């Protein structure tokens, strides 16, 4: 029943641009898909209790790797695209073992400095990365000789990418792997004592998260056909975090809801200009103060209450447990 509903919704999501062909909305759909994937990659990091400001850099690494592979080396798009994520993941695998030893706020600061160094490298190494000017004329994706130029095609790509990212992240959380990385956040000593190699699990999560950001970057590069370092600076990971905070970080639905809400927001506030940024900041403060579990947390709480009211036995224990977990993850 739930599967049927999910399939129906997906078919609907995939079909609308072909029925109601409004390129601007399709463009917004593409951007939403991109940000769902980016926010999911940040969600993985928050799940292991590490706030990473290096994810803008990982996105950039993926973008530049894929763009340069197609432009300079003439590598076909699918391989270049895959290599974008792999490039980001390899860098993560390289620095991860050292970085992940650092915890909490120090990790955030460390990744921030690392992200800045990567972006400054894009700026300074002009021969390879094109400096502040960036790379211009990145080829649009092509599959089996067919070039993807129409917006609905891009939309399908973005939708598939976002859905696959969601399925992957959810599968991770529901598996034993997910239980371990979550418990790492809760109690590392305990996990270690039952013989699980927690650092390796954490590294794997970090690498997959970087890969997701890298693929998002590769997609971004081939969609816009233009990239420059500023797009991968400090504010990109901040936006990923903000989406998670709005949606709720305790569930993979959080980043999805957050992205679907936040990406079109500037378009709705178009006429507001500077007030757009102001309302963004105020909204964020309100959420942090009054909805620390995000929208998904709020929905869960309401559902929990509703269920508790319905069943006299008060089987809401499960819901309560859920709430506790969210609290812990949020803190």
């Amino acid at each position, binding site marked *: 029943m739930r599967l049927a509903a999910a399939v129906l919704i997906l078919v609907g999501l995939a079909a609308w641009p072909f029925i109601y062909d409004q390129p601007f909305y399709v463009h917004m759909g593409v951007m939403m898909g991109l940000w769902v994937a980016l926010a999911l990659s940040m969600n993985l990091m*928050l799940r292991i209790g590490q*706030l990473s400001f290096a994810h803008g850099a990982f996105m950039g690494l993926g973008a530049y790797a894929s763009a340069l592979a197609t432009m300079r080396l003439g590598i076909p798009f699918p391989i270049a695209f895959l290599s974008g994520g792999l490039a980001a993941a390899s860098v993560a695998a390289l620095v991860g073992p*050292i*970085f992940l030893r*650092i915890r*909490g*706020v*120090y990790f*955030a*600061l*460390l990744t*921030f*400095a*690392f992200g*800045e*160094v990567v972006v*400054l*490298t894009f*700026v*300074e190494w002009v021969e390879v990365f094109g400096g502040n000017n960036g790379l211009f004329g990145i080829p649009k994706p092509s599959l089996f000789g067919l070039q993807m130029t129409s917006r609905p095609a891009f939309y399908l790509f973005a939708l598939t990418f976002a859905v696959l990212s969601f399925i992957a992240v959810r599968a991770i959380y529901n598996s034993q792997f997910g239980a371990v990385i979550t418990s790492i956040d809760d109690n590392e000593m305990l996990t270690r004592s039952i013989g699980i190699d927690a650092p390796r699990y954490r590294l794997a999560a970090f690498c997959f998260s970087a890969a997701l950001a890298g693929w998002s970057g590769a997609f971004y590069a081939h969609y816009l056909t233009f990239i420059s370092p500023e797009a991968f600076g400090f504010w990109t990971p*901040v936006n990923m*975090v*903000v989406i998670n*905070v709005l949606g709720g970080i305790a569930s993979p639905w959080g980043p999805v809801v957050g992205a679907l809400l936040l990406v079109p927001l500037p378009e709705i506030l178009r006429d507001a200009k*500077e*007030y757009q*940024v*102001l309302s*963004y*900041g*105020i909204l*964020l*403060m309100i959420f*942090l*103060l009054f909805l*620390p579990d995000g929208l998904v947390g709020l929905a869960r709480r309401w559902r929990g209450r509703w269920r508790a009211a319905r069943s006299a036995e008060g089987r809401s224990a499960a819901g309560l447990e859920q709430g506790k977990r969210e609290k812990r993850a*949020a*803190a």
Partner: protein
Amino acid sequence: MTAPWPAVLPHCCAGRHMLLAQILSNGLMTGLVYVLMALGFTLIFGVMRIVNFAHGELYMLGGFATLILFGNLGWNYYLTVVVAAFGVGLFGVLLQSLLLKHFIGRELSGMIMALAIAITLQAGANIIFGPEEQSVPRPVTGVLDLGAAVVPYDRLVVGGFTLVILAAFWFFLQFTRWGLAMRAVTQDSEMAAVQGVRPGFIHPLAFGIGSLLAGGAGALMAPIYTIYSYMGELPMLKAFVVVILGGLGSIPGAVLGGLLLGLVESFFATMYSTTVATMIGFALVIVILIFRPRGLLGRTA
């Protein structure tokens, strides 16, 4: 051609040793401002465990206070700096008691809250004052010619102010009851609580003093650079680097880190380029965080 500008300007930079002397003097003057920013930043972290991403915006508020009081209303410059510093300090107390209070001990949420405050203040300033970079006339002009190097008088004023503030701050921490309490909280908040230090008072006080220092730095630098809503981003970034170099929460570390970064940057920016200097700053941060996560003078956990 005849020079239409004042002919009283000294000459400089004749040889290599002169270049070096100039590098030292540039670096020292910049470093002192870094110290001022980093002190507040590190104090706030030490006491409240909050990474204050809004620190640059407090600096910006100090800058705009100078624009209004000194630039538009024609107040005395030194009075302006003092009023701006205390004004921003009070604003900081307000921020802490209204918004940040709820995030003590929750490092990640606290960091995001500080970011939200930064975004809001920046956007607000952009709406009120417009996007253009603005300038105020300089209260002090001319340069001090040391032979091997020249130091503009306005930089000297900033340096002098910084030293006075540093001395006052040191006195406050060493010899006043509140200062002692604050140091106690920085070192061990639980022990301090046992000993009867009330965080409900120490937290706003620490955030207020941190804001005061940032606001004062902004007010001091306003006539030297330009004033605009994004002016705090760079100083905040520098404070960030300095504080990690010296150790988050370490006050002597902030002083040492600030001067060190000022000198290192001045050297590499003169010899190579500013971007190289910035990169070296961040590379230092990475290395130190990995090998000495508590910084050069930070306590080892």
